[in-house]
C-alpha cells in the first residue's frame, strides 16, 4: 500500500505520521486494535485504566466519538490520555456533530498533537442517543470527510483552498458494514472510501462469518485488499440481555440464530464465558480469510475481557519494536 498516489499534485509528499499501527500492517503482521469508550463525566481515570489493561495486547486503541449519539468525554481528549499511557490511539471522528469547519479543525488538532490514526464515519443518527432533540449536522458524509483528509494531506490545503503550513498527516481509516443491505454493494462502497483516501478499514461486528467471507471475496475480486488494510470487527456478548439489546436496538447489527442458540444453551452464570468463547472462535475463523489484515475488538463497557479473548484465539501479547510515539512537547 503506497501513500503517494500519482495525482498530478505537488510532488513533495508530506512526511508520514509515525503510526505504529501502519508499520505493523505494512510488515504484514496480523494487527490487533480494540475500542475504548470514554466515560460520561469529567475524569479520564477510566480511560487510563483501560489503556493500561490493553497496551500489551493491542497495536492501537480506538477512542469512540460520542458513539450511539450519547454524550461522552471528547475523543481527542481520550486519545491524549491513551498516548500518555504508552498506547497508540485511533481518533474516531464523525459527521453528525460537526460541520466541515469543525471537522477540519479537529483533524488539524489531531495531527498537531501527534495522534497518528484517525477513523472517519458518518455517525449514528441523534434519534438513537440521549439527546434525540438535537439537530444532526451531516454537512458532509464519511466518504467526503475521508476525501477532505486526503486533500489536506496531499494538496496541503483546506477545502477553501487555503494553504496548510505545515500540512498534517494521519493514517486514515474508514468503516464498513458487510451485514446491512444491499450486501452486493458493500465491497464497492468500501472501494469508494478507498478511492477517497481510506488506508485501513474496521468492519461492523462480525457474528455471521459466512456473510463476511462473501464480502471479503468481493473485496479481493476488486483488489481493494491490496490498497486498504481490512480489520475484522468482533466483540463479545456478555449476557442474554445484551444479546437482545444488540439484536433489537443496535442499527446494522446482525446476530444469526446459531450464535443465539449457543448463548442460550448454557447456564445463566456461563453466558459471559460463552460470549468470550464465541468471540475468540470468530477471531480464529476470520484470521484465516485471505485479505483480512487484523481484528478490531469492540467490547462495549467490557474492555477487561479483551486480553483473555485474544489469548483464547491464539493471539500473543504484542511485541513492540520501539517505544510508542512520544507525547509532543
Amino acid at each position, binding site marked *: 500500500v503506497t501513500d503517494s498516489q500519482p495525482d498530478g499534485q505537488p510532488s513533495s509528499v508530506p512526511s508520514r505520521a509515525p503510526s505504529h499501527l501502519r508499520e505493523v500492517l505494512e510488515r504484514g503482521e496480523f494487527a490487533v486494535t480494540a475500542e475504548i469508550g470514554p466515560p460520561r463525566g469529567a475524569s479520564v481515570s477510566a480511560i487510563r485504566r483501560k489503556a493500561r489493561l490493553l497496551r500489551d495486547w493491542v497495536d492501537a486503541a480506538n477512542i469512540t466519538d460520542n458513539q450511539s449519539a450519547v454524550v461522552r468525554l471528547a475523543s481527542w481528549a481520550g486519545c491524549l490520555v491513551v498516548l500518555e499511557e504508552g498506547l497508540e490511539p485511533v481518533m474516531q471522528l464523525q459527521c453528525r456533530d460537526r460541520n466541515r469547519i469543525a471537522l477540519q479543525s479537529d483533524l488539524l488538532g489531531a495531527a498537531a498533537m501527534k495522534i497518528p490514526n484517525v477513523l472517519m464515519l458518518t455517525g449514528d443518527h441523534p434519534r438513537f442517543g440521549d439527546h434525540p432533540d438535537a439537530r*444532526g449536522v451531516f454537512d458532509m458524509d464519511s466518504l467526503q470527510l475521508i476525501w477532505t483528509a486526503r486533500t489536506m494531506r496531499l494538496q496541503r490545503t483546506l477545502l477553501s483552498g487555503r494553504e496548510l503550513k505545515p500540512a498534517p498527516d494521519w493514517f486514515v481509516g474508514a468503516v464498513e458494514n458487510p451485514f446491512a443491505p*444491499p450486501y452486493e454493494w458493500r465491497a464497492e462502497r468500501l472501494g469508494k472510501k478507498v478511492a477517497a483516501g481510506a488506508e485501513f478499514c474496521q468492519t461492523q461486528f462480525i457474528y455471521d462469518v459466512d456473510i463476511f467471507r462473501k464480502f471479503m471475496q468481493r473485496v479481493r475480486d476488486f483488489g481493494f485488499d491490496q490498497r486498504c488494510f481490512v480489520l475484522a470487527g468482533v466483540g463479545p456478548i456478555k449476557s442474554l440481555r445484551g444479546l437482545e439489546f444488540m439484536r433489537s436496538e443496535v442499527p446494522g447489527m446482525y446476530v444469526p440464530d446459531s450464535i443465539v442458540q449457543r448463548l442460550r444453551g448454557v447456564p445463566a452464570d456461563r453466558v459471559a464465558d460463552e460470549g468470550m468463547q464465541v468471540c475468540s472462535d470468530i477471531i480464529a475463523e476470520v484470521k484465516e480469510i485471505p485479505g483480512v489484515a487484523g481484528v478490531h475488538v469492540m467490547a462495549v463497557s467490557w474492555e477487561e475481557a479483551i486480553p483473555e479473548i485474544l489469548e483464547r484465539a491464539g493471539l500473543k501479547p504484542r511485541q513492540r519494536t520501539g517505544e510508542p510515539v512520544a507525547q509532543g512537547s
Partner: protein
Amino acid sequence: MAPCKTRLSAMPSLTDLPRPFRPRTSARAMIAMHSVLDRNALWYGVAVFLQKVPLLYQAFTFAERVVKARLFGCRMCGQCALPATAYACPMSCPKQLRNGPCGGVGTDGSCEVYPGMRCVWLMAWERAADADHIGDLRRLQRPIDQRKWGQSSWVNYWHGDDEGLWTEDDLLSAPPLLQTTHR
C-alpha cells in the same frame, strides 16, 4: 411517519427533516427524459435568461419544486444528484448521505431512523440495477454547497455550476482533490 402527501400544501419545506421517499417514476423513464433536459446551448441560454429575470426565475423554480417534490420528494438542495442515483433522492435520507447507504439499514431493507420506510439508497441500488446503471453509484459525490438550498437545480445545471459535482465511475483511479468554497 406517513409519506409526503401530493397536495401542494404538503410539499416538503426546506425546514422539514428528511425522510426516505419512494420515487413515483421509473429510473428508465427519467434517464430517457434526461436526454431532453441535458445541457446544451439552448438550455444554457434559458438558464442565463431566467437568472436575469427574478420573477420568471421564481416562477420556474416553483414549478420545478412542484414537479420534483411530487416525483422524488425533492427538498430543493439546488444541486441535483438524481441523474447519478437512479433518480432516488439522497437528500431524502435522514443523514442526507450522497455516497451510498449507511451501515444501519435493517436486514429487511428498512431505514434505521424510519423503520416503516425503505432505505432510499437501497431503492437507488435496485433502480440502478434495473436500469443497468450500477456504474453511476461508483461515482464519488463531493460535498454540497449549503448556500444553494432553494435554488433551481435545473438552472444551476444548465448554467454549468454543477460541473464536478461527482467524479467518473472508475473506482480504481484517484479522484481529484477537493476545493469546494469557490464553486
